[in-house]
């Protein structure tokens, strides 16, 4: 019976950390002894090692036997999996887009848009995005694997929203329903914008070493700084509105009006920026001590100014479309009343 003892303890080692492990071992031992006894009776001779070996071989490898008791063969079970995918689909694009924008800003503001440094920043940025996306995926998997084991079954069943699914929702296309994905993305971007503007303004500029000295040329002039409180106010109200909409899940006349006011304010600010000269901090004087030749500096200043104007025009077009949509939505809501 020595082999049976070793076999049982080997199965025990392979058993997952579940309740009743000793119980399983005890029951397995009892079964194997029953079977062995029966075989000995049939063979008409006492139990010997050959008989034990034959029996254990038929019963299967300890690992295989242990696996049949595993109540949790999944890292993330089939009930949790759809929810896991949903979270992954929201988080990964946000991580990628935010880092892509940050890399873009860094590349445009910290390099002369060409040369080795520019390529290095882009290369590092892209490598960083891949590793950040993999890291984020890893974290989400770990969180879900833990939830799968910690949450009671009833809670997991609550995650299934499909049961409340109403076929009527197929035909209903309520323009008042908010698009959660858009809102989450908007909150993320606005937050990043706020953080850069207030906490890391050094990203918005060019820094370089020349003759062992460190130079920093800010992208924006002091004139721009006067507008920062206004930008902050618009961004903050935007975030508050988005969070409120996420909770309410539906547009109301009140929120539509706030949204229109925000769009008008953003539009006004963009137009004021376009009409204000010297908002860009890159000037011939600011590059005086830089390693650039005056010609290079001048070329770069022109590129920066044109790029800034183009970005503002893009912003104006996007905000205008949003404004028109918001006004149409408001008119529709008012007509419904």
């Amino acid at each position: 019976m020595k082999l049976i003892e070793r076999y049982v303890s080997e199965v025990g080692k392979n058993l997952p950390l579940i309740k009743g492990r000793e119980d399983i071992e005890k029951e397995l031992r009892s079964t194997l002894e029953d079977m062995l006894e029966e075989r000995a009776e049939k063979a008409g001779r006492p139990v010997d090692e050959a008989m034990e070996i034959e029996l254990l071989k038929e019963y299967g490898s300890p690992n295989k036997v242990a696996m049949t008791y595993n109540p949790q063969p999944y890292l993330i079970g089939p009930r949790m999996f759809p929810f896991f995918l949903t979270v992954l689909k929201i988080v990964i694009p946000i991580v990628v887009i935010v880092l892509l924008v940050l890399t873009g800003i860094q590349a445009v503001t910290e390099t002369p848009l060409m040369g080795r440094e520019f390529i290095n920043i882009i290369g590092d940025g892209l490598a960083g995005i891949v590793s950040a996306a993999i890291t984020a995926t890893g974290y989400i998997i770990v969180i879900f694997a833990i939830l799968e084991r910690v949450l009671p079954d009833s809670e997991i069943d609550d995650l299934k929203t499909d049961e409340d699914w109403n076929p009527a929702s197929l035909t209903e296309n309520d323009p008042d329903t908010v698009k959660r994905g858009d809102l989450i993305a908007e909150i993320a971007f606005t937050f990043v914008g706020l953080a850069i503007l207030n906490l890391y303004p050094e990203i918005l500029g060019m820094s370089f070493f020349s003759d062992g000295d460190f130079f920093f040329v800010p992208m924006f002039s002091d004139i721009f700084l006067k507008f920062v409180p206004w930008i902050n106010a618009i961004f903050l109200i935007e975030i508050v509105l988005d969070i409120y909409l996420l909770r309410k899940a539906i547009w109301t006349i009140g929120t539509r009006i706030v949204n229109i006011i925000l769009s008008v304010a953003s539009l006004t600010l963009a137009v004021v920026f376009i009409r204000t000269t010297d908002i860009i901090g890159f000037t011939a004087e600011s590059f005086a001590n830089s390693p650039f030749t005056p010609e290079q500096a001048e070329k770069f200043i022109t590129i920066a100014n044109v790029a800034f104007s183009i970005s503002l025009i893009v912003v104006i077009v996007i905000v205008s479309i949003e404004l028109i949509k918001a006004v149409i939505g408001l008119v529709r809501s008012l007509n419904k009343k």
Partner: protein
Amino acid sequence: MANTESLENVVLELRRGVIVLAALSQLSTEQYGYSLLKQLSDQGLEVDQGTLYPLLRRLETQGLLESVWKLEEARPRRYYIISAEGKKILPKLKKEWFDIVSVMKKMLT
């Protein structure tokens, strides 16, 4: 080769559901795992130990079976018996089974 494998899988799937009903139906009197295995086998239903033992534990967790350890012939044995909850469910399962059989009989003949 692939055909044999898929045939085996389908047969396995078919039997899996049946084993629950078979086990519940035989446990109106208490039995330990190995005696149940033999009883099922004697009646023509061969069940693998690796299937039956974990299944008995699962049915117990679900409250359909109860179990108790008894010491006999110098060996502890775990005896299973159908619980009150299991007794409530068994007639419904039987009805479901006979319905399936009659539908499938019509469909297949």
